[in-house]
């Protein structure tokens, strides 16, 4: 099985994530879509590591996981705070700042 399929899958997951950010309203789900995008990149990195015959890409994937975990902490804190204030997690409701 050629590694190219993994790359295509990764691109597909990235696209699904990006579209999810655009179409979903719940802030948590939007955030999960972004996580999906990051993880699709991980798949790419590992695949490229395999293609190039070295380990760098796999190590990078670990870095990305750590960063994503940190992002979850910060993101959930922010989303929690605004959910408690507004009793809603819809990103369309946070619409005071505009024009």
């Amino acid at each position, binding site marked *: 099985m050629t590694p190219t399929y993994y790359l295509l899958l990764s691109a597909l997951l990235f696209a699904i994530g990006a579209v999810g950010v655009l179409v979903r309203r719940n802030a948590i789900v939007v955030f999960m879509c972004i996580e999906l995008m990051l993880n699709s990149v991980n798949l*790419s990195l590992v695949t*490229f590591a395999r293609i*190039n015959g070295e380990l760098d890409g796999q190590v990078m994937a670990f*870095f990305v996981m750590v960063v994503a975990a*940190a*992002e979850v902490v910060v993101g959930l804190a922010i989303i929690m705070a605004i959910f408690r*204030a507004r009793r809603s997690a819809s990103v369309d409701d946070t619409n*005071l*700042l505009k024009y």
Partner: protein
Amino acid sequence: MPQQFLAQGEQLQVPAIDFAAVLPILIVFGAASIGVLLEAFLPKHQRWSSQIALSLTGIVGAGIALAAYISDAPEGGITTFMAQGATTGAIAVDTPALFLWGTLLALGLASLLMIGDRSLEPGGAFISQAGLQSGGLQTREQANVTGMQTEIFPLTLFALGGMMTFVAANDLLTMFIALEVLSLPLYLMAGLARRRRLLSQEAAVKYFLLGAFASAFFLYGVALLYGYAGSVKLAEIAAATAGSSASDTLLYAGIGLVVVGLLFKGSVGPFHTWTPDVYQGAPTPVTGFMAACTKVAAFGGMLRVLTVAFEPASWEWEVPLWLIAVISMAIGAIFGLTQRDLKRMIAYSSIAHAGFLVVGAMTLTEDGLSSTLFYLLAYGFTTIAVFGVISLVRDANGEATDLSSWAGLAKRSPLVAGVFTFLLLALAGIPLTSGFIGKFAVFSAALADGNAALVVIALVASAVAAFFYLRVVVLMYFSEPAAEGPAVTVPGAFTTAAITLGTAATLVLGIVPAFALNWASAGGFVP
């Protein structure tokens, strides 16, 4: 296939680190980490004073370490964090990096002074318990509680350290990590305003979601470039561009996505959409920090990536970046004309300035590099002072950022109006301010590189943008003050020092810019 696995009995090789060179970064991160510990162990009433002392010491100490290193820095710069057998390290310490570190530390110091100020608002501009539900009884009491969420200080230091790492990162992975280290604290800081909690939280959520979205793009670009070049080191990407067998689609899609991530951080149109909302909603000292330091970091990183990694592909990316510079200048100049909120207006001004900076960043000559570095320095100081002045004009609800409430300010407080006029003139690029020197240097470098059309557009855009700075000046001098208008608060030592520093730098860099220009043009990127 994996030959890198350690053989039996072989020692793990620690990468070579030149500690003297990276000492400034280490000091900043060290101070930040100690700050987190202080937060955990000190009683509440001692935190503010010890945190501010620690942060100031950290930044000043880093500055001293930087000065000590510069005094006998090796010619041409070095790279450090070098793995065994590698030719380049993960962190490059060269003239542009040192210049940007100095800039970031100075701007960080001014921002920190504004963040730590408690004279304008009892207890400071930040809420004491960010976790409390806003709108409720508890939050209203918060306005009277004199305490602040002192985690803001370590957060600022972490962000600053991230920025310093970002501008020195010599490979894309380090750059990504630094990008996150600088961004994550900023997302939180944007949501910590004491007043107008809903706006502040909205700014945080928008900045966070869009920032994470942009960093996903950046990361995907990194992955594609890794696939193309087999390495994420900037120099090796450049080398691979000349002779890699991989598909060029990987290369150019990778370049595009990495640049998108950088443009987002630099608030360049059309990736600017978060800027006005976040600038307006975030607490003003944080806005000042973001506007000045984040821009320096983003463009510092962009300069390095474009010059070191993507230079061989410059023929291809010149056209798209040309277009993006024009879009950014146009958006900033035109959208800014009808803004009614001062912080929002400055946000659009910063988008226009980002367009000018792209003009400088895409000019890959010595002049282009040094003039863009100078522009960042000049713009950073002016912006910090601008937000410092904005934080002075207040009414019963906190800062009065609506333009109409600034009417006739010159009658109430000629000094504040005079300083603000001077700063606006600097943003407009009138001679004897640093803004003029920056624009002149950047535009003449771009012209010498053959970008005449872009320079004409940039001059027209800056003429249009001058109009909305002028609107504020007209309002301050030529209108009658409103009866119930805001008052100008007399700032305490911290904010006074920050504004004075920013204004003095704007003036000095306008009259005797030679030392800064000389430093900026002392050397290029280490290859």
